[in-house]
Structure formats: C-alpha cells, structure tokens
C-alpha cells in the first residue's frame, strides 16, 4: 500500500509517551549524575563517579548484585529447563502441572519477599520449625540475622519466585522442535541422553540465550523482594544496587550520587542486552 508514511502517525502517541516519561528522565538522570541538572549552580563534575569507586558500600553492593544475578539466573535456567522438559512429556493432567509450575511467578516480588521473610523467621518460621520437628537442628537458626545465611535465603527465595519465566521461554522452544528430528535420531540408534544432547540442546540454543538475557535484566532490576525481605541488611550483606541507589536518592538525598549508581547499572544492562537487541534488528525475534 502506498500510505506507508501514515505508519509514523500511528506510532506517534506511543513514541511521545516513551520520550517524555522514559527518555527524558533517563537523560536527566545522566545529567544529574554529572551535577548538571536541577541544581542551583550547575557545574560539570565526575565527583560522584570518583566517590563511587572508593565507596565500600557501593562496591559491596555491586559485588552482591553480580553474585545474586549469577546464582539466581543460573538456578532459574537449570530449574526452568528441568521443569520445561517434564512439562513437554506425555504426562497426565498436564494442565494441572502447568498451572502449578507457573504459580510462583504470579506472586508479586514484594509479596514473595514478605512470605519468605516469615518462612525464615527465627521463631515462628516454618523452616526452623520443620528443622526442629524433624530433629535436624536442635535450636533455631537466625537465618535473616546472619549475613551469609541472609544472602543465601534471599537468593533461594528469588530462585523460587522467578524461574517460571525462564521455564515458559524454554518450553516454547521445546515445543517448536520438529518431531522428525527425534524420529531421525531414533532411527540412527540414539539413546535418550544422546537425543537430548544432539537434538534438544542445539535447537534450544536460541531460546536459551533469550531466556538468559531477559532473566538477567529482570533480576538486575529486582527491587521489591529484597526491600521487603531484608531491606538490604543485616549490615550491607544483602544490599543490591537498585536498593542502594533508591536509598541514596530518596532517603539520604544524595541526588547525583544515587543517579550515578543507577547510570552504572543501566550501562551494564545495556551491554548485556546487546545480543538480544541485535536479534531484534535482524528480525529474529
């Protein structure tokens, strides 16, 4: 059709909204991090970034974020792949298993944080109660009060809540694999494991990358669960970048400092999402 220019008009409202509400604040945040916007005397400085490099709390949060995202995303992919393989088989009551498999993801992360906080509560929590009742432990463990255990508990909670997302993407990938490939492999005498290795995995690679990138971005942006489960404590032990940036900006009013942190996070996420964006440019998603 000849009226292709009209396409711009259809996209205009959405485009304007994104420029105004996402684009402008993003630019403003960068300017704020250099002390150039909404200050009485704008003067370019990289002071906020220099301070970041020497701030142990920031470096700890950065390390925490990397560790958290690595562990949580790996567990999501592992559990997600396992459950996706199960759901892709000829099992009975498939819809029921599928519903149960998606359920954790339906819980808002803030709410999930609260539920897990109660589960790990020292006295009336179910974890300690079960440990005591089964005789595995004789006295209550202060899960969320000890730095190492608190970090592990938060990672466990988010591993639980977020994996159905990766599972759904991988399941879609599994269902798209042509049956003929498996039949051909069987004719060649492949075992079940060989079929998995030589048919399933290569076909799944594309989806795997998508799940990896998208989940990494989701988990790096996570805020509500840590906020409600530990608030970053004890000490800085479960502090992640989003939480620290929020605190600096909205609680301590270190505007350019909080903004600089968010800029660092956004830059990292941009590079992580590049393979995904490249797929989009090649029309592969």
């Amino acid at each position: 059709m000849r009226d292709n220019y009209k396409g711009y008009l259809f996209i205009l409202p959405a485009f304007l909204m994104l420029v105004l509400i996402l684009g402008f604040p993003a630019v403003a945040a960068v300017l704020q991090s250099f002390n150039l916007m909404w200050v009485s005397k704008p003067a370019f400085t990289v002071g906020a970034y220099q301070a970041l490099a020497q701030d142990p709390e920031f470096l700890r949060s950065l390390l925490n974020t990397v560790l958290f995202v690595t562990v949580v995303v790996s567990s999501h992919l592992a559990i997600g792949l396992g459950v996706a393989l199960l759901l892709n088989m000829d099992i009975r009551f498939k819809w029921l298993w599928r519903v149960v498999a998606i359920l954790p993801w339906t819980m808002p992360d803030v709410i999930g944080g609260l539920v897990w906080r109660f589960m790990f509560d020292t006295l009336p929590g179910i974890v300690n109660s079960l440990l005591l009742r089964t005789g595995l432990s004789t006295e209550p463990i202060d899960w969320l009060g000890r730095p190492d255990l608190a970090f592990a508990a938060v990672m466990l909670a988010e591993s639980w809540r977020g994996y159905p997302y990766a599972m759904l993407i991988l399941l879609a990938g599994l269902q798209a694999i042509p049956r003929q490939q498996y039949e051909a492999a069987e004719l060649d005498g492949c075992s079940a494991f060989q079929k998995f290795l030589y048919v399933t995995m290569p076909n799944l690679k594309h989806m795997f990358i998508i799940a990896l990138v998208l989940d990494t971005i989701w988990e790096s942006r996570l805020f509500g669960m840590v906020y409600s489960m530990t608030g970053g404590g004890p000490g800085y032990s479960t502090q992640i970048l989003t939480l620290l940036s929020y605190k600096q900006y909205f609680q301590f009013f270190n505007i350019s400092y909080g903004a600089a942190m968010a800029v660092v996070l956004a830059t990292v996420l941009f590079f992580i999402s590049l393979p995904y964006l490249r797929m989009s440019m090649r029309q592969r998603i």
Partner: protein
Amino acid sequence: MRKPASVWIFIYGALAVMFVYNLLPFFWMVISSFKSEMEATLFPATLLPDVFTTEAYEKMWLQEGFLLYFKNSLIVSLSTAVLSSLVGIFAGYGFSRFRFRGRLTLMTLFLATQMIPGVLLVGPYFKMLTIFNMYDTLSGLILAQTSITLPFSVWMIKGYMDTVPIEIDQAAEVDGASRLQTMFLCIVPLVLPGLVATMIFAFLLSWGDLLWALCLISDPNKQTMTLGVTQLVGQFRVFWSEIMAATVIASVIPATLYLLLQRYLVQGFTEAAVKE
C-alpha cells in the same frame, strides 16, 4: 514411543518434587493467615491451625485501611492496562501494517526501553511530577506505569496483528474504509483474545510494582496494596497472621488472572518474547 515404568516413576517423582517446592510458600502463607495472632508466634509453628479463625482478615479489612489500598491498586492497575493497550493498539498496528523507513530501528528502540532499570528513571520522574504539581497523585503513578508497560504491550499487540492476513486490510480498503476504520472495525475484533492477554499482563506488572508507588506516593490514603503491605511490617511489632492475610489478598487477584487466562497469556507472552 514407549518408556519403561522406571522412567515414568522418575518423571512423576520429579513432578511431585516440583509440586511441593512451588506450593510450600503458598501453603504457609494461607495457613498462617487463618491462625490467631497468638498461634502465629508459637515455636515450633503448628503446621495446621489449631483453631481456624478469620480474625486476621477482619482486622486487615476493617482496621488497616486495606479496602482503600485495594481500591487504589485496582484503579492504578486497571487504568494502566487500558491506557497502555489503547496506545499500544495504534503503535502495534503501525508496526504490523506499514513498511516505513526506520521501522526496525524504532521497534528495537521500543524493546530497548524495557532494559532501563526503574531506579534510573524514578528520581527525575519524581522531580518532573513535583514541577507539574502531580506528585502524590494516582494519575502521576498511572502515567509512569503506563510508559513502563507500553513497550511490552506494543510488541505483544504487534505480534497478534501479524497473525491476521493482510488481505483483510486490502479488502477493507477496497470497500473504502479508512485506516482507522480498518484497525478498529476489522483488526481489533480479530485480535481481541490477544488484547485481553496484553491488558492482563500490563495489569499484573502494575499490580506488583513497589518502587514507583514508594517514590511517588506519600499520602496514606493513596497507597497501593503492595506499598500498604510493606508499611505494615515496619510500623509496629510484626503481626504475622495479619501480614499473611494481607499477602493472601494481594496475591489472589494475580494468581486468579493467570490461572483463568493462562493459555492465552502463555501463548501471547511467548509470541511476544520469542518468535522463530
């Protein structure tokens, strides 16, 4: 292909493990919400309430203003869902039906906005709202959440519209319909299930948000559900049975929506996120 019995035992065993793993937190949440305030503090905890009571729910609804939070959350999430789908229909149609210069770049740009972390945006956006006198209003919050859900909505709706044959547009054009008429009268009715899925997804994203509500709302009467629940913990001694009642209430709507529409949602979601 037939599998030996031992393989099936392993498969159903693994499914059973998944079942327990996924449901344990839900079980604990629901069970605890029906305990009395006293019983919820016992150690070791009772696995089933000795006395079933709904007192936590009654307190929640009547005393803590949760009716208001619930209403606010509904207003914000519904408006977000409607607005982002409405704007999304236009953009989705534009991307699906027109071949203009820079189309792919623009689509990728839309996708890229999803990668921006909220903490980067919320500070300057807060400042913008105070300048326009919209801080501490539900409309300011709705506007923010709409822009966050918008890119996803556009991609989902575009994916659904791509499945409708272009011949329908051509037939409508021959009949003298304008582009707008074609879109609303011919295409939208055909992608209605997908549109519903898109709206539900936007609704759920908005319903689960904490960061934006936390930074943009200070009036207790305008708090959303998620914000209200977190404030409950900090305020006084932790009353777990009440908090669990609140979390049950906050999880019921998303869980129900997912379960009712899971087929559409899963289909639409995977189509938008991944297309071979």
